[in-house]
């Protein structure tokens, strides 16, 4: 199978027209000893029918969530995706396009991103949002870098209630030597506020709060903003976008930078990617923000139009002065997020958030009826940790019953509830965890 349109005759004719005898001459500039001199050992190439069969076979070896109810969350959530979404994503003008560097021929993509930025602002209550970053974890790392770069300080205070993979990613980025990570302690599933505020000093660039946090708990956030800003540090919040249908926005809490994982907004779980990281900030940090930004402008007829803007921040202009090396965003995933938010709409998002919450509350009650207890005594949105002696064993038993269980914490199972979960599924889960599997 080949995707090239050249017939053998055409190849001959083209070679002839540029004065070459054969294809080997095209590589005359590569020293022979550097040439591979054999075919790559990738196999002979599969026809589409063979490829179809092979891929179906691989896919068939997985237990997919169409067939098994899933109570995993921990940063990636099994929400319902309206059918119209994927059919719009398959519009190939969108997915086969490059970054819209040429605005006249790319208005559709630019406008879609502009609308995405607006929606993220609406959700987060912030002034400005970028066109998306790789994922929630790397978006947090970028936000920390941005805080350090902007404040010329080094210390990044991360809470023990942060998603452990986010923590790992920020740590990796800190190999730059430009960030020093300080861990803020946890108490009963939320940040120990006093101990944490005591960590703030003149070298503290930012304090990060995840809301709801990794354990599903709602952080007692009031009062942070003043203390952080009084120290001239930045408040960075990591949020679940679906929760913002219900919970107070980071803008209202006084956050300076907001990031999060955009996957729950209409992106399939897809074994962890591609997802998108969203990032928003207050206007005063706009010119420090990494990633692409689309702005509204006018054309030479004074018609409203859209264009990539503030590119002076970016690597392809600033090169070694750029504060981020970000180049690609996750445009198609951001488009999916926009279409999702357009399809479910203002009331739909509120309803979805409320439903997730209601199901989680119901689940807690069912668990409690079986005498199980929650690990942390905090309010939660759609996720909580239930105490269990051997969560790994329970997960294995659940899997045998055709249920994808939770995320294993020491002595607890972190369970998430989306609007896709039914009462019957929750009843079954509770019965298994609380009874049969115990």
């Amino acid at each position, binding site marked *: *199978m080949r995707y090239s349109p050249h017939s053998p005759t055409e190849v001959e004719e083209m070679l002839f027209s540029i004065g070459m005898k054969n294809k080997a001459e095209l590589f005359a500039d590569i020293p022979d000893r550097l040439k591979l001199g054999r075919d790559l050992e990738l196999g002979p190439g599969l026809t589409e029918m063979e490829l179809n069969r092979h891929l179906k076979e*691989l896919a068939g070896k997985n237990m997919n969530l169409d067939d098994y109810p899933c109570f995993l969350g921990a940063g990636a959530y099994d929400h319902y995706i309206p059918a119209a979404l994927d059919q719009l994503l398959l519009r190939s003008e969108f997915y*086969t396009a490059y970054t819209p560097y040429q605005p006249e021929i790319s*208005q559709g993509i630019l406008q879609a991103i502009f609308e995405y930025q607006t929606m993220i602002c609406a959700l987060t209550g912030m002034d400005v949002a970028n066109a998306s970053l790789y994922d929630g974890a790397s978006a947090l790392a970028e936000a920390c870098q941005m805080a350090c770069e902007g404040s010329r300080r080094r210390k990044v205070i991360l809470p023990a209630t942060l998603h452990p993979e986010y923590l790992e990613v920020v740590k990796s980025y800190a190999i730059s030597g430009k960030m020093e990570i300080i861990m803020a302690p946890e108490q009963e599933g939320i940040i120990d506020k006093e101990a944490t505020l005591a960590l703030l000093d003149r070298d503290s660039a930012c304090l990060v709060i995840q809301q709801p946090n990794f354990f599903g708990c709602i952080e007692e956030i009031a009062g942070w903003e003043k203390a952080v800003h009084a120290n001239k540090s930045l408040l960075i919040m990591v949020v679940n976008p679906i929760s913002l249908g219900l919970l107070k926005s980071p803008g209202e809490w006084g956050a300076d930078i907001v990031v999060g994982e955009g996957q729950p907004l209409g992106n399939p779980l897809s074994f962890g990617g591609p997802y998108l990281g969203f990032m928003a900030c207050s206007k005063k940090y706009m010119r420090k923000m990494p990633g692409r930004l689309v*702005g509204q402008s006018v054309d030479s007829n004074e018609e409203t139009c859209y264009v990539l803007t503030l590119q002076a921040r970016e690597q392809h202009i600033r090169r*070694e002065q750029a504060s981020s090396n970000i*180049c690609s965003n996750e445009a198609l995933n951001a488009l999916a997020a926009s279409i999702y938010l357009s399809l*479910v*709409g203002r009331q739909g998002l509120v309803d979805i958030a409320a439903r997730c919450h209601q199901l989680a509350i119901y689940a807690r009650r069912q668990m409690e009826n079986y005498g199980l207890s929650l690990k942390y005594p905090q309010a939660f949105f759609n996720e909580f940790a239930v105490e269990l002696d051997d969560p790994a064993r329970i997960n294995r038993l659940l899997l045998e019953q055709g249920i994808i269980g939770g995320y294993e914490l020491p002595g607890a199972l972190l369970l998430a509830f989306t609007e896709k979960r039914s009462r019957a599924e929750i009843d079954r889960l509770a019965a298994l965890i609380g009874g049969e599997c115990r």
Partner: protein
Amino acid sequence: MSKVIFARSVAGGGGFFLPPCDVAEIEPAAEINPEFLRAEAPLLPELSEVEVVRHYVELSQRAYGVDNGFYPLGSCTMKYNPKINEWAARLPGFANLHPYQPEESVQGALELLYRAEKLCCEIGGMDRFTLQPAAGAHGELTGLMIIKAYHQHRQDLARTKILVPDSAHGTNPATAHVLGFEVVEVKSNEEGLVDLQDLKACMSSEVAGLMLTNPNTLGLFEKEIEEIATVVHADGGLLYYDGANLNGIVGVARPGDMGFDVLHFNLHKTFGTPHGGGGPGSGPVGVKDFLSGFLPHPLVEKKEEGYYLDYDRPLSIGKVRSFYGNFGVIVKAYAYMMALGGPGLREACELAVLNSNYLRHHLQEDYHIPFNRLCKHEFVASGQKQLAENGVSTLDIAKRLMDYGFHPPTVYFPLIVKEALMIEPVETESRERLDEFIAAMREIAREARENPDILHQAPHSTVIKRVDEVRAARQPILRWPGLGAE
């Protein structure tokens, strides 16, 4: 302009409904302190499905992708995105997997990742790969993290510099800077290649490594790559290969055989996964054996019971994003690699290089081509002649190409060529398309001589005219004003 979607919103007109609730419909405030609750719903649009669909269909018709025509964007490798790959990534057995599912429930996904890594190793001539980085620039970041971790591990702490050629992609110096390196630029010689003398002068025990694209951004093969490697290695530096231009040599030669120690691939370039209007990409990073301990964790390994995620990697730099990378993109790239196989991948490369030299040959009469000799997958022409003789800029030429139905090439890059037009025609373009492009470029050269105004005011056939980019940057409007003041 299409109306923004917010302007189409009708209060109370939303079309999404949840199934009836079969558990207690408790008020959020009964469980969550009201001070944590939102007073007002976020200002999202309220529309029925038909209006959402029409909106995005309309936007799509104002975009231009590879499926719409020739897209000779240099260094971006805009090749055709095979449709079976879109189908594959959407198979429920791939799309509907949670990343934290038990390993035994995702054996097919792990097998695919395992196999994809093996294919990458063979293509690159490397020993191990991580598939975690989400984009090419992310791969560069990961690669330099590995280089830094390696030197640190050896207690070789004085290596604070990274060398990059003056023709390099902007991401190279930006990445080095972000990771706290000092960037030292190496000059190009009159052939457009790395100046070996200057390289030697720049090299020292303070250099952590050299980042290089080969073929370089002029589309020229760095034929002295072995000497370059010797110079860098001799002083303890490492060689990083920027895979953006891999399409010029894939299947014919391998970076690993040239002395590179670390590299990234751009799956969305060389391996035909869609660019998506700016992402998602995927930037796997490959290393030689001596660096494999530093790769991000987990890697996929195989034991008798099946495939598993190996986190037991004490030297690992950790993670560069959550989970295991852009899995859906990797599925597509894997399908592409399997579809082409060894011979197919080489053939694709040959045709890409043929197309590139064919265009170069047939444009040389009308356009100045600074380094006009055998090129690989791309070449750089220049609008200098038109600028000097007709007062027509490269930007004018680029904009005018839209009127002829083409996406413009990359312009004003690489920086070492004035009025650069960086043209990459890729192997999935037919001779007919190339001939149409040549004809258009010739016609534009004629217009430049006879009617330069038509170029200054181009494009004429697009939905908007030339954009005021300065105003956009001076008075940034980054969200719909109807949302309220920023």
